């Protein structure tokens, strides 16, 4: 009988990681296919603190012929005095998280994705259209970004905290010197070392301002308000992540318009009648005083349910035409819930304007928010695109 014990070098073995990477890609692909639903997902828009989301994805189940776990009996062990009627597990509709085919399990795979990852997917293809060079010269600033933690690196980049944590963890696992933990620093071996790696990147500044206008009149119900918020939620994230120097001006209006803070913009209640021209007037005033088009790329956006005072519509048309002369792109989103879009809504009026800088979209349901984002923020063919 022969017994051999070997200790080979496994440091280059990456098979699990490679397939895990492939799995992760599939998760991203699947999430991408579901983006329209996720963009307007309440738990994302309404919560701010949640870092990790669980996204149910059917395409990552490993399908095969199997018995229906929900219909059959399963065997378990009790603690000595179990009896009929005892509850083993309380179910939400789909049981507990256990993928195995012969155990009560979820009906679908739940992938975990961080808000950042989701954001990356949603914002991937978005870009400020028609971005142009303005009088103020472009300033390229050199920045350093902390990108990754690795096991090798320059000693000057040693991540002391992570290294110590690794050392402590590995020491505890090996069971050595357990008594000295917490008294002396644990012995650090090569495999515990962790280094930060930095990358140089250039950030390009183009001066731009986005004027976000939202109808907060009484006719904007919960659904309409929610849609507008969803859109602006992602728009703000998009601008803040991808562009260094974009200012955002928030304007809320009913019969009168007011410049508000970001917080007020997202939380303001609705009341009052609707006079959309008030918002455009304010926007124009702000542009003229603070953001001359010669120096800034200007992007006004307006979301409303389109139910304007009919007598105001002509004025709106005139103002929008004026705005179009001063901006790079103008976006108008009309949210039609259960109301039919009648002849007198703003949309029917704007549709008569022929200007490629104007983009109008109608949003009737949550799944149309993402397409709207893409419609407004799309790459255009032009010398200065991107």
């Amino acid at each position, binding site marked *: 009988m022969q017994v051999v014990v070997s200790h080979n070098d496994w440091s280059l073995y990456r098979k699990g990681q490679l397939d895990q*990477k492939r*799995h992760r890609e599939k998760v991203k692909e699947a999430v991408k296919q579901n983006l329209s639903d996720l963009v307007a997902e309440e738990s994302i828009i309404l919560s701010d603190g949640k870092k990790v989301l669980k996204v149910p994805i059917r395409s990552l*189940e490993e399908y095969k012929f199997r018995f229906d776990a929900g219909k059959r*009996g399963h065997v378990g062990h009790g603690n000595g005095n179990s009896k009929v009627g005892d509850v083993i597990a309380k179910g939400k509709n789909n049981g507990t998280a256990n993928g195995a085919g012969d155990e009560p399990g979820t009906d679908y795979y739940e992938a975990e994705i961080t808000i950042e990852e989701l954001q990356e997917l949603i914002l991937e293809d978005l870009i400020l259209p028609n971005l142009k060079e303005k009088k103020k010269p472009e300033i390229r600033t050199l920045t350093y970004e902390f990108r990754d933690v690795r096991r090798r690196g320059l000693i000057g980049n040693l991540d002391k905290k992570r290294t110590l944590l690794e050392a402590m963890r590995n020491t505890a696992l090996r*069971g050595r010197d357990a008594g000295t933990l917490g008294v002396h620093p644990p012995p650090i071996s090569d495999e515990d070392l962790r280094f930060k790696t930095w990358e140089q990147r250039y950030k390009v500044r183009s001066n731009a301002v986005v004027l976000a206008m939202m109808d907060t009149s009484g006719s904007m119900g919960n659904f309409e308000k929610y849609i507008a918020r969803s859109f602006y939620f992602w728009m703000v994230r998009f601008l803040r992540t991808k562009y260094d120097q974009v200012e955002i001006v928030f304007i809320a209006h009913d019969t009168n318009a007011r410049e508000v803070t970001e917080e007020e913009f997202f939380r303001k209640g609705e009341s009052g009648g609707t006079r959309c021209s008030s918002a455009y007037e304010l926007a124009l005033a702000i542009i003229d005083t603070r953001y001359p088009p010669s120096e800034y790329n200007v992007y006004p956006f307006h979301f409303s349910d389109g139910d304007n005072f009919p007598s105001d519509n002509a004025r709106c048309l005139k103002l929008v035409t004026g705005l179009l002369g001063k901006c790079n792109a103008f976006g108008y989103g009309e949210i039609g819930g259960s109301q039919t879009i009648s002849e007198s809504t703003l949309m029917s009026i704007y549709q008569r304007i022929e200007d490629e800088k104007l983009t109008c979209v109608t949003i009737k349901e949550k799944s149309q928010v993402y397409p709207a984002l893409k419609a407004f923020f799309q790459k255009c063919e032009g010398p200065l695109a991107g």
Partner: protein
Amino acid sequence: MEQHERDSLEQEIARIGEKAKEFGLDFFDMRFEVCPADVLYTFGAYGMPTRFSHWSFGKAFHRMKMQYDYNLSRIYELVVNSNPCYAFLLNTNSLLQNKLIAAHVFAHSDFFKNNSRFQRTQRDMIESMSASSERIRKYEFLYGKAIVEQFLDAALSIAEQVDPYLRKAWNQAKEESPLPEKDILFFLIHHSKRLEEWQRDILSIIRNEMLYFWPQMETKIMNEGWASYWHLRILRELDLDPSESIEFARMHAAVTQPSMRTINPYLVGIKIFEDVERRWNEAGQGGREKIFEVRESESDVSFLRNYLTKELVEELDLYVYKRVKDDWQIVEKRRDVVRDGLVAALTHCGVPYIVVQDGDYNGNGELMLHHSYEGMELDPTYTEKTLEYLFRLWGRPVHLETVYEGAARIFTYDGRDHRHR
């Protein structure tokens, strides 16, 4: 691991091997490999060190690694049914942990060598899988990763539909194999008109792997029970110091923990073996000899049917639970019913018994399958999705006869829509 630790480990493992032999365990030559967590979890996820690549393994790897990283559970070892027998030890195990695992592994090796279900398994599967993985990689290079992945997705969905006990000569052609055919993979390989050579090769690789793994699936409880029985007895023979003894007790307790939602094969297995030994000894009929005999001739289904006594069901406090409205509740405690329920769940490794009934259904080259209904219904969503995969493999409409919601039904997928009738 420091050199002196490696030397101790080697000496200890050799000693344990000697003890195992003294007890009568009979195993192949052993090769222990010490490796880091990543590697062990890779093997755990893939089932074997040299398996082909697929995202589903990545998913399993991620899950296992997460549980390890969050300290939720650990695999300590992995042992392969092969000759020589390969075993992988986690490099962060303590010496005592490795001793227990080594003892456990020697018993697994004895089980693989002697249990009748394993007699025809390929003992050089590691090399064989390495060669198959190489071929699959070649196909990925020739035809594109995405194409191969999509094919694997379909092939894996019916991987379990093989016939492990019918010896088919590889060139046994169409005319000679009568219907109904249980080995759906075999049937597709030989009769599907739309598969290319490389696709048939992949199906045969998958089939081969399942034939290799099937005995392990059929004897999980026995094998873990056997290995636990022996790690207990072998370690008691070693001179453990007090701290080692405590760690040993703790480890054994952790491994044999009862679980509310599923049975623990280590616990059920060891209890049955100990009970058989005790009863045969009490009857003056050689308990130790008896359990060696049992480990050779039984598989889980017969093991439980013959040796899971009503007393044991009670001692282990086993029960059957089911979904009742929104919760999972215990519905059965009568000992014989519980035992029968467990045996039923383990029958055919918990895989639905499905056969090819007709390869030319409707005179139109359609595939008709039949599910042998024995009281447990199929998961409808999974059934539909799997039929979609089958369509991909067969090329024409596929049908499955089964019982759904109490009535006989046929599920059909024609390439575009699903129908039930």
